[in-house]
């Protein structure tokens, strides 16, 4: 039981981060490594606003909005200029941007790890042989709400359908009168805001915010989108949970036989060997 809870919490965070990456990869075919830097920005902004206002929910929303805007900025000032170049160009830019962001955060917020102490005033749920802490409740419920909203957005609104159309064929979508610019910007906004949510949640959960917190995320999220089939949203969601359950179960069964990160990549290699298109290929591609 405890294992399932742990895996769900871990998977929730993987999923939140991967959604942005998947959206962006799905539409622009860019591997947005700097997304991990965006995630860190979200955590820092959340912490800063929480320290300033003392209101966690306000801080969370401010952080999501501002980080979302930063994400749009990354698209319109950087990626948009190189979209016509070979795909290696945006990739290299993305990696460079990620490193620059980490150092920028260090200069602004300092090198020391910062605690993110938050007491929501809810009690931990204690049952026989398991415990769900208040922060785990927070993560599970916010992820659940986000996923439901995302599902509604993608399937019930015009904007969602426009995003899907752009992911299918960007040029064609433009030709059919969809404002591609606006759709892509929105995808960056949405993805970045969700990354900020993930950053704040992880900051609270680990009680720890620091400039290089995106390192691990940068490659874990990559594994998730490969597993999920490059650009499939539902695939990314399922893959995030598969990864977290694989990691947690293996640790429970065998102990720390391998570092977690090794497990993630092992799973990825196996999938690529036997199912190179990922577990959940998008029907249309």
């Amino acid at each position, binding site marked *: 039981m405890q294992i399932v809870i*742990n895996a769900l919490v871990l998977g929730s965070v993987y999923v939140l981060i991967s959604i942005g990456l998947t959206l962006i990869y799905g539409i622009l075919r860019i591997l947005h490594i700097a997304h991990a830097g965006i995630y860190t920005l979200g955590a820092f902004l959340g912490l800063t606003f929480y320290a300033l206002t003392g209101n966690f929910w306000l801080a969370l929303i401010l952080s999501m909005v501002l980080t979302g805007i930063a994400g749009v900025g990354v698209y319109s000032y950087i990626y948009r200029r190189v979209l016509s170049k070979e795909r290696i160009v945006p990739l290299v830019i993305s990696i460079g941007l990620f490193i620059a962001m980490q150092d920028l955060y260090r200069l602004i917020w300092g*090198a*020391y*790890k910062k*605690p993110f102490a938050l007491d929501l005033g809810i009690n931990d749920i204690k049952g026989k042989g398991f415990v769900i802490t208040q922060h785990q409740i927070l993560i599970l419920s916010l992820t659940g709400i986000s996923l439901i909203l995302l599902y509604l957005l993608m399937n019930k609104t015009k904007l969602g359908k426009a995003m899907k159309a752009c992911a299918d064929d960007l040029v064609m979508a433009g030709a059919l009168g969809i404002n591609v610019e606006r759709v892509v910007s929105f995808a960056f906004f949405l993805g970045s805001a969700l990354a900020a949510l993930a950053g704040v949640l992880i900051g609270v959960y*680990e009680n*720890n915010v620091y400039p290089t917190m995106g390192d691990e995320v940068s490659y874990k999220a990559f594994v998730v989108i490969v597993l999920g089939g490059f650009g499939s949203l539902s695939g990314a969601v399922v893959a995030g949970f598969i990864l977290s359950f694989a990691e947690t179960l293996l640790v429970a069964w065998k*102990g720390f036989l391998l570092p977690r990160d090794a497990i993630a990549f092992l799973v990825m290699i196996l999938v690529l060997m036997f199912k190179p298109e990922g577990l959940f290929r998008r029907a249309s591609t």
Partner: protein
Amino acid sequence: MRRLLAVLLVVAVSLAMAGVIKIGLFVPLSGIGADDGESALHGAMLAVKYVNDHGGVLGKKLELVYYDDQTDPKQSVSLAYKLVQKDGVVAVVSGSYSGPTRAAAGIYQRLKTPMVSAYAVHPDITKAGEYIFRVGTLATVQGRAGAHLAVEKLKAKRIALLVMDNDFGVSLANAFKAEAKKLGAEIVFEEKFAVGEKDFRTILEKVKKLDPDVIYATGYYFNASKIVTQAKELGIYQTIIGQEGYDSPLFIELSKNHAANGTVITTDLDRDSERPVVQWFMKEYEKEFGRPADMVAASAFDAVMILAKAIEIAGSTSKSAIKDALYKVSGIDSVTGFKHFTKDREAVREVVCQVIVGDRFHRFWVIDDPEIVTPGK
């Protein structure tokens, strides 16, 4: 005319230089070790201030030349050449981790420049040669002291081990295990974890079922804070024993629900010490840098203090004279209670055990038995 100018320039430069003695420092100021690097730099800067306020060395002022090694062995090696050949430092302090320090140690030995490692623990560092010294407590000594703390002081018979899987964690755990067995305790559980591990719940569940008397967990403050937090969450109330890696105010801050309280660690920094230099250091550090000092800062402080003393004993800035003098340094104003170096260039000091009570470190026990605290025994 041009030659004359050049000569004048050289004279001017050497006149300007005459007033200072340069000490080099390499620290990680970016990359994963950036926070420890900043602490080490601040500690060293404070020591230079302390020495200069007390009249300097050989009538000259100390000057610190420092560079960022990015926690990268390649960088620390090229910085070694830079510090010695370009900046002309007379001795060097490593404020970096074991990896970069170990790589640079061989270079300093070859360049015959004394190097004092502040807090890097890998046993091989000092084996680089006669010019390489260590202020920090060797892992074997600290592990041994931890075993005495567990078995003698805390009366543990059954011990669970959580081992961080790197040089630091493994060498501590091995020393601990050997000594604990010798003292008659039983290791009922042992598990390794990666440095970046964040979720110990699954492992702690297993530990809980075994119901050991204490848990000895090697780690740094950032994973240790997770171990104590998650242990409390799961209702594990046995004492957790840590080491100097825990020794940072951040260990307490990053633990949730005050879970750090009750943890006992072996370390070099005795915050309750009455010695004036410790009190001055703790107060001045917080005033100057806006945060409480940690073990890393204290070790870097001492490394500079030891070098200053060695230069004074040597009576010159000749590198080989400083090296010889380092073997003789004792009775200095040291924050970590440094006594002297052994012939293998390892530090001898009392090992301080601190307990966390009311979210602060306090003195718990002091181990000064030479059989335990002398490296190489």
